[in-house]
């Protein structure tokens, strides 16, 4: 098809209408705005490429070009989604994009030529209906974005300085700390859709406690001197990213503990630095993605996935753990890929055979699948005990 510029834009908008409506429905059902954000990104990327690149470079666009152009757009959309922190799960985002692409192909090659005989002659232009469709697509998008905007939780700014806690967040909100904002004595989150950003928490038994709350985002938080857990999540789902947990006080302190949320949905811990404590990142009966974190100097295990957890552990760096680096235990299923585990030393004093400096350990009926991990300077690279399995891809 040799599209005119108007034809490209109108065809694009027409093809976006169905995915856009689907995104709105999914957003309402899932109570998450990423489908709308993703649809808006797809439309923006598509229109920009249509106007700036395709129209100039492709006076005629053969059918096969839809595939490489689709991949180009997918790359741009996913890159922008990551850059703009669109919280879209990868598989869902890919499926959404693929579905939208397929709809666009069916529309351009079958539905529109059937509905409008001169679709090809007109270079993809849709005439009067085209303007209406374009307007409708923009209205739907504008409305969705407007609703998203107006229903966003309120932003609460935490001024620089020390604020006495515990701070209880029992309503949906975005708590954003100014540079130098410190909460002493912990934060407790009990409401869904809470975001805590750029806040330092000092002291308290638990630095940040998430109790029965879903879709909680902890972004850029720092927790110091917690007595038990830096971050503790019970019956909730969280996305924790770019956090720092250090200098725990108690001998049984843990960095991040996500437990008893298997039925609620996956949590994510990424790009965090956890130093010291008994365990760095631990899940009990939870689904989790643990990636790109740095965990070091733990005294029991650096990363623990146990009690029938199901977890992907990717791209983490584990250093100088005592006993075990990455632990998959108690009938959990763990996919452990591209991690670097080094300097794990044997806990000889414990007299426990399972703590003799294993880089990666599978224990008690757990299934650990390994791929492309770098294990260096550990007393023992891998091990499995009590009907547990450890396999490589």
């Amino acid at each position, binding site marked *: *098809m*040799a*599209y*005119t510029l108007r*034809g490209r834009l109108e065809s694009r908008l027409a093809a976006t209408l169905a995915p856009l409506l689907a995104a709105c429905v999914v957003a309402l059902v899932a109570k998450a705005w990423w489908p709308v954000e993703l649809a808006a990104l797809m439309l923006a990327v598509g229109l920009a490429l249509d106007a700036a690149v395709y129209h100039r470079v492709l*006076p*005629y666009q*053969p*059918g*096969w070009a*839809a595939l490489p152009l689709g991949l180009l757009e997918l790359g741009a959309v996913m890159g922008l989604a990551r850059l703009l922190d669109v919280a879209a799960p990868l598989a869902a985002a890919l499926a959404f994009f693929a579905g939208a692409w397929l709809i666009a192909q069916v529309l351009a*090659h*079958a539905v529109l*030529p*059937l509905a409008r*005989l*001169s*679709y*090809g*002659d*007109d*270079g*993809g*232009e849709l005439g009067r209906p085209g303007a209406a469709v374009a307007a409708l697509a923009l209205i739907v998008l504008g409305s969705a974005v407007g609703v998203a905007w107006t229903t966003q939780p309120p932003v609460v700014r935490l001024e620089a300085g020390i604020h006495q806690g515990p701070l209880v967040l029992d309503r949906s909100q975005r708590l954003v700390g100014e540079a130098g904002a410190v909460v002493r004595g912990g934060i407790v989150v009990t409401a869904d859709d809470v975001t805590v950003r750029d806040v330092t928490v000092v002291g308290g038994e638990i630095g940040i406690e998430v109790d029965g709350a879903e879709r909680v985002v902890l972004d850029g938080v720092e927790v110091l001197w917690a007595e038990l857990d830096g971050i503790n999540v019970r019956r909730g789902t969280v996305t924790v990213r770019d956090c720092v947990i250090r200098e725990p006080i108690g001998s049984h302190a843990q960095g991040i503990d996500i437990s008893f949320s298997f039925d609620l949905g996956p949590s994510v811990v990424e790009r965090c630095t956890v130093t010291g404590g008994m365990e760095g990142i631990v899940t009990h009966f939870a689904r989790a993605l643990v990636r790109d974190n740095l965990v070091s100097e733990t005294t029991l295990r650096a990363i623990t996935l146990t009690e029938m957890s199901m977890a992907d552990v990717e791209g983490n760096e584990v250093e100088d753990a005592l006993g075990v680096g990455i632990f998959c235990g108690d009938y959990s299923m763990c996919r452990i890929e591209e991690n670097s585990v080094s300097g794990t030393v044997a806990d000889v004093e414990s007299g426990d055979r399972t703590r003799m400096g294993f880089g990666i350990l599978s224990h008690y009926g757990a299934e650990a699948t390994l791929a492309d991990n770098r294990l260096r300077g550990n007393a023992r690279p891998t091990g499995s005990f009590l009907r547990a399995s450890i396999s490589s891809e």
Partner: protein
Amino acid sequence: MTGPCAIVGGGLAGFVAHATLRKGGLEPADIAVFGSDPDPAAVWRVRAAAIRQRRMRSESDGHCAPATFPGLAVRAALRRRSVVPLLQTVADRYHPTVGEFLEHVEELRAETGWDESFRRARIEQVRAVEGGFELDDHGVFAHVLVAPGHPGLAFPEELAGDPRAVHAYEPHDYAEEVEVVGAGMAAATEWLNALAAGSTVTSVRRREPERRPLNLPRELFTRRGLAGFHRAPDAERVAFLRRYGAPSYPRGPAWDEPVERAAGEGRFRVAAEPNGAGQVICATGFKRGFRHDGLLARLVAEHGLETVEGWIVLAPDSTVPSLTDTGRTLALGGAPAQWAFPAADTLVGAKYSARGLLRRVQAWRTR
């Protein structure tokens, strides 16, 4: 008034127009088609057989149905239960066989009720009257598409009356030594035919052939390329039509390899003039210009239509501006409609004219 619509010409361009009007909601009884043979592919079939054409130059959308989808590739994929035609068409490599095309014509003929609309009559005169056009003594019609086809085969003057000469589009066999005059698709097909028949071939041509997949660049089949063409002043438009009127044929080893092999064996050569071979095949296409067609020549003369050189000046939707208004339409289809659509003599061109007519008819019906 006798009826709302008439199509003058029962060939493929008229057939496409009939199918388009039917798709637009007109009944067979609302459309009168005047032609000499009820088979819309009769003339085309003879020409294709004459040059032993096996595949169409056009691609999946080179069909007569009013909507682009489903194209012939989709139909072939369903019939053969194979995705190969679909993969070929996304790469612009699908060319239906002549058999597939003719089968599609037959199906569409039955589907659209063509035979109910067809009237065996040769129209000699189209005369504008109040509210429409009078077609000889067949009555008055509000909307008329004139698609008379090519006005005749073109022969080089120097070969007129030469008993050795035969036109490529006339039935013929191949002598031991054959000269093929021309450089387009028909000429290239005849080189291969004659070589396959064991002949020694001389390609008579005064310039190197153009190599294009279709007879025009693809963007000229849509508004993207047409907008500039329609904006161009007359002289520029004429130059453009002359340039792209020059013969061409597609690239590809299927065309080149047999010729190269024969050239290596001394059975194929190129010459600027005929050299006295026993048979001269004139692959020189058709006569051009409205003056070669009696009906169009009378139409122009009697109504004082604007012309530029051999072309009748048309509006972008293929209608004759001075004879078209909200109450009546005179449109041209097929080769004579090049002023509106440079590839008017293709199936896509025929659809372009037909859609222009349909828009006018629909606007008239909802007035």
